[in-house]
């Protein structure tokens, strides 16, 4: 509610930026560098990421800010309560992986600092041990809640911003602007256009990837405008800067992992300091992902009935197990990055059609939380199969054009020149047809309840 919204514009901006700037940005930048040269990378990063963020904003932000709900209750209107839970399970598994990846990267940074200072190779057990410490620190932050995360970001984010400026300065002076701007792609495909398309898609996917956790942040923001611009500044503009820094470093220094190039670039003191801030950035990003996911888990009756401490502990436990398989986790982070992109575009499309086009910005909160047959969102066994299948089909379209796991692409990619947009359009059109031809006539979902509601609200004014 209004008095519970603790984040003004600046806090929201710091949180969004702290969420965005973590090792994953630098990795995305390095992947970008593998496909295209730096000048092309600027265009692909700026415009690709912007498109992804805009799609996400249009679909999600209006409902989560307006009603003060997070991402998952907002999905009930187009997925049904049980359909939302299936999707939530998918997001939970995804986010378990992300928290493990960022924690291992935290550990890798510690290892590199240790090795740079001591000159010795760090003991193998240190990798998992330090990652466990990272998860426990994250857990403490999440247990304390959004205010603690906001406070941490007030300190961390300005430091990260300065760090990025300093690192860019070192690259430009140490290696020369010419070296960066004349750099070539590191490991491109043979087809030049395919490289550009994939690079754009990588960044569209990066822009969309915040979808699962966005609602948990925007619901705490005091104004809709503040939520929107904080998001644009944080996960769009600032993420672009971090990605391009990662790309520039990949071109001139080599390597996709910032923990390997920061010390060679900045020296032991500045590079080490930079690594520390990136490590802290990983913690703050992890905290937001963990917070949003645990909040989502409260949609399940079991988790709704237990304390926040126990809920977060149950999320942390499988993450800790994953840390004992670091090679498996670290070596497959691209699956997390690309696999989620396959479905976020179609999810956003269905939400946009449902909330904006069909329901005209009205969400029936009573039906969202009504778990019985009397709920308008009960649909068929708790699932709106049309919404669910539209998202799946959109995801399949994505996968047919581009395999998100292997990055093998079909010839059709050169025709459509995009992967996310066809997925978005197919899912959106399918759901529009379903809502018009099935939901409206059957009364399932009470698509036109908005008319009664707005008439009532207008009558009360």
């Amino acid at each position, binding site marked *: 509610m209004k008095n519970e919204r603790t984040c003004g514009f600046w806090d929201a901006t710091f949180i969004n930026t702290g969420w965005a700037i973590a090792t994953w940005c630098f990795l995305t930048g390095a992947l970008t560098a593998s496909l295209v040269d730096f000048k092309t990378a600027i265009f692909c990063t700026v415009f690709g990421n912007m498109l992804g963020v*805009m799609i996400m904003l249009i679909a999600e932000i209006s409902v989560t800010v*307006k009603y003060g709900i997070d991402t998952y209750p907002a999905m009930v209107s187009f997925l049904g309560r049980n359909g939302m839970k299936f999707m939530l399970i998918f997001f939970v598994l995804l986010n378990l992986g992300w928290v493990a990846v960022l924690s291992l990267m935290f550990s890798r940074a510690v290892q590199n600092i240790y090795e740079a200072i001591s000159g010795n190779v760090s003991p193998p057990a240190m990798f998992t041990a330090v990652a466990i410490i990272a998860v426990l620190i994250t857990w403490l932050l999440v247990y304390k809640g959004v205010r603690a995360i906001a406070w941490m970001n007030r300190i961390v984010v300005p430091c990260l911003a300065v760090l990025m400026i300093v690192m860019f300065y070192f690259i430009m002076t140490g290696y020369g602007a010419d070296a960066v701007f004349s750099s070539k792609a590191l490991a491109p495909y043979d087809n030049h256009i395919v490289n550009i398309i994939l690079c754009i898609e990588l960044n569209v996917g990066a822009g969309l990837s915040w979808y699962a956790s966005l609602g948990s942040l925007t619901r705490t923001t005091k104004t809709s405008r503040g939520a929107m611009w904080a998001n644009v500044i944080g996960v769009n503009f600032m993420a672009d800067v971090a990605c391009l820094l990662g790309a520039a470093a990949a071109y001139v220094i080599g390597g996709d992992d910032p923990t390997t190039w920061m010390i060679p670039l900045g020296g032991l003191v500045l590079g080490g300091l930079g690594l520390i801030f990136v490590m802290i950035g990983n913690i703050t990003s992890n905290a937001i992902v963990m917070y949003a996911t645990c909040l989502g888990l409260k949609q399940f009756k079991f988790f709704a009935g237990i304390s926040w401490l126990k809920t977060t502990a149950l999320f942390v436990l499988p993450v800790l197990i994953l840390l004992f398989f670091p090679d498996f986790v670290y070596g497959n982070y691209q699956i997390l990055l690309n696999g989620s992109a396959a479905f976020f575009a179609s999810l956003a499309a269905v939400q946009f059609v449902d909330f904006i086009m069909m329901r005209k910005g009205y969400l029936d909160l009573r039906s969202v939380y009504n*778990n019985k047959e009397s709920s308008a969102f009960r649909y068929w066994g708790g699932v709106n199969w049309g919404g669910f299948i539209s998202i799946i089909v959109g995801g399949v379209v994505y996968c047919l054009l581009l395999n998100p796991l292997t990055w093998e692409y079909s010839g059709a990619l050169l025709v459509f020149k995009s992967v996310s947009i066809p997925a978005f359009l197919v899912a959106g059109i399918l759901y529009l047809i379903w809502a018009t031809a099935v939901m409206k006539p059957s009364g399932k979902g009470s698509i036109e309840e908005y008319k009664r509601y707005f008439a009532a609200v207008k009558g009360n004014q």
Partner: protein
Amino acid sequence: MEDRIYGNIDNVRAELKGNTEFDSDIEEQLIERIAEIEANDGVVPPMLKPDWIAIIVMTAISVIGIIITLGLF
């Protein structure tokens, strides 16, 4: 949904009591909140027209930018 009185807490309670997955005290909080949100059409005012125009402009810029990128390089 014909018997709904939006913003009326008793009406919300009649529809939701015992029908959510929450304990009774949390359920009652939820009922109060939903009634208030219905009465005010949301917790906070929605984004203003200039904000929506900015989003649409940025979307257009990104699409045009992508088309230019594909053509330019």
